[in-house]
């Protein structure tokens, strides 16, 4: 029978069914190797240029290019969200609770000089100047889906490197079980700090194995440039399989602890925002479903919502971190 079903490989109802980018890239690498010699070298340059060309270069900020990442899952092939949307529709409560507030108010943020203190249960605590952090590992471009707990999503080309590179540098003690991220809370430059929406400074956290996962990105840029202030300049976390609020912005301190960090949103509403906050279409937010999402900039007013994917589509990469856990309890 020639009746097509969803299982015969011709239909791709979800993006996750499509050949993963890493596999696709490995095939391309193989082809390039086979092409060999000068042709191969030319192709490699062409492939790198293609990755950057796919990101619009508004050239408003200092360029920060990254080599296409080879981390599995690090480059979704989905259409990029426009730079304009990604930098004008933001949640960064330190600058106001309205989506347009950060773009309007974040210009007051002073990003130089900037230091990030890395301390707690580590052998080599240190205060890193931003320049030293930038040079700590090669910058990679990674195209991640970002899913906000409010039910919208974007596709953003970030620039940075795996957080694990920094973690390895400070040599955590065996007793370190969690990593805590502290965001800047400067009353003078951040008007949102005056509101009592959250307990400042904004604190987020990861379990040690989550922090060591290669997809957990310490990011310094997006769209081939340094991070805009409203997107968490000069350095932020990006954890693509968790809701957006897990990715703390404008980091000033990274601390290693034995106890699970008391995170800002968990303190504000524990029944709504758990410690894990993994993207999960089957676990509804207490006030709304998480089954679908609105992809920002996709098709205008008549665009349909998309089905949300478990772990935001990164199940193949991070699923094993949560093996045996009850995700309804550990939301």
């Amino acid at each position, binding site marked *: 029978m020639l009746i097509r079903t969803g299982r015969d490989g011709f239909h791709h109802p979800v993006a996750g069914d499509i050949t993963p980018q890493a596999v696709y890239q490995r095939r391309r690498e193989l082809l390039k190797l086979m092409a060999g010699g000068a042709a191969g070298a030319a192709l490699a340059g062409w492939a790198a240029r293609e990755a950057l060309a796919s990101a619009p270069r508004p050239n408003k900020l200092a360029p920060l290019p990254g080599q296409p990442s080879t981390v599995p899952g690090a480059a979704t092939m989905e259409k990029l969200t426009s730079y304009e949307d990604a930098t004008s529709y933001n949640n960064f409560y330190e600058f106001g609770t309205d989506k347009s507030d950060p773009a309007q108010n974040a210009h007051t943020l002073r990003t130089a000089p900037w230091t990030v203190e890395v301390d707690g249960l580590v052998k080599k605590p240190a205060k890193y100047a931003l320049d030293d952090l930038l040079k700590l590992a090669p910058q990679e471009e990674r195209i991640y889906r970002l899913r906000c707990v409010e039910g919208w999503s974007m596709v953003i080309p970030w620039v940075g490197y795996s957080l694990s590179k920094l973690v390895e540098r400070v040599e955590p003690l065996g007793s370190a079980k969690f990593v805590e991220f502290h965001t800047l809370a400067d009353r003078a430059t951040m008007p949102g700090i005056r509101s009592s929406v959250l307990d400042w400074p904004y604190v987020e956290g990861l379990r040690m194995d989550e922090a060591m996962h290669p997809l957990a990105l310490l990011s310094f840029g997006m769209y081939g440039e340094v991070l805009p202030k409203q997107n968490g300049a000069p350095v932020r976390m990006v954890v693509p399989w968790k809701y957006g609020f897990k990715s703390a912005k404008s980091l000033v301190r990274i601390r290693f602890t034995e106890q699970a960090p008391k995170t800002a949103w968990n303190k504000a509403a524990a029944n709504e925002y758990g410690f894990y906050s993994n993207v999960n279409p089957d676990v509804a937010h207490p006030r709304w*479903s998480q089954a679908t999402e609105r992809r920002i900039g996709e098709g205008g007013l008549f665009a349909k919502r998309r089905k949300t994917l478990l772990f935001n589509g990164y199940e193949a990469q991070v699923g094993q971190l949560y093996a045996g856990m009850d995700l309804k309890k550990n939301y």
Partner: protein
Amino acid sequence: MAAAPRARRSPWLHPAAKPLLFAAALLPFAWLFYAAATDQLGANPQEHLIRSLGDWTLRLLCLTLAVTPLRVLAGQPALARFRRMLGLLTFFYASLHLVAYAGFDMGLDFAEIAADIAKRPFILVGFSAFLLMAPLATTSFNRAIRALGAARWQALHRAVYLVAGLAILHFFWMRAGKNDFAEVFVYAAILGGLLGWRLWRRLRAPQLQPG
């Protein structure tokens, strides 16, 4: 003797006032329609449309409920002419608000919409406010008033106070996620003031017809 003609020429009573107010109240709709057609609704057009239409519903509800206090306090009985028109415009914006939610955001997926109404108290409350407004809008015609009888018609139309309360609760719950209630309090204060004025007037002079 010059007082009488001046009073007749008072801007409150100008014959163009009503069509002008009608046109002005439709300007936000015209702008949103134009912005939607030319893709100027920002990064999340569905959300922008729903929120703008909700804001305008609340604003027109405030205006509608302000007619009677203004009429009495300013001593301008002619203002009563605006009340039904403003009430119907409020219903017009509330309907568009609902259409934007059900059509553009939920893609007319009625199973999803029903689940959403059941799951999210603020949507249930907003939906209830809309359902309550519908009989008021459909009985706003002269013939309906005559058919119902003035007393019953007026009793029915007092449901607008319940609509106002539900609308504020809807807005409050919507903003509860961000604990950002500044705007909610502004609308609550205006609507509370307008309803409070009526209560106060009624308690002070129970023999007067409530407005």
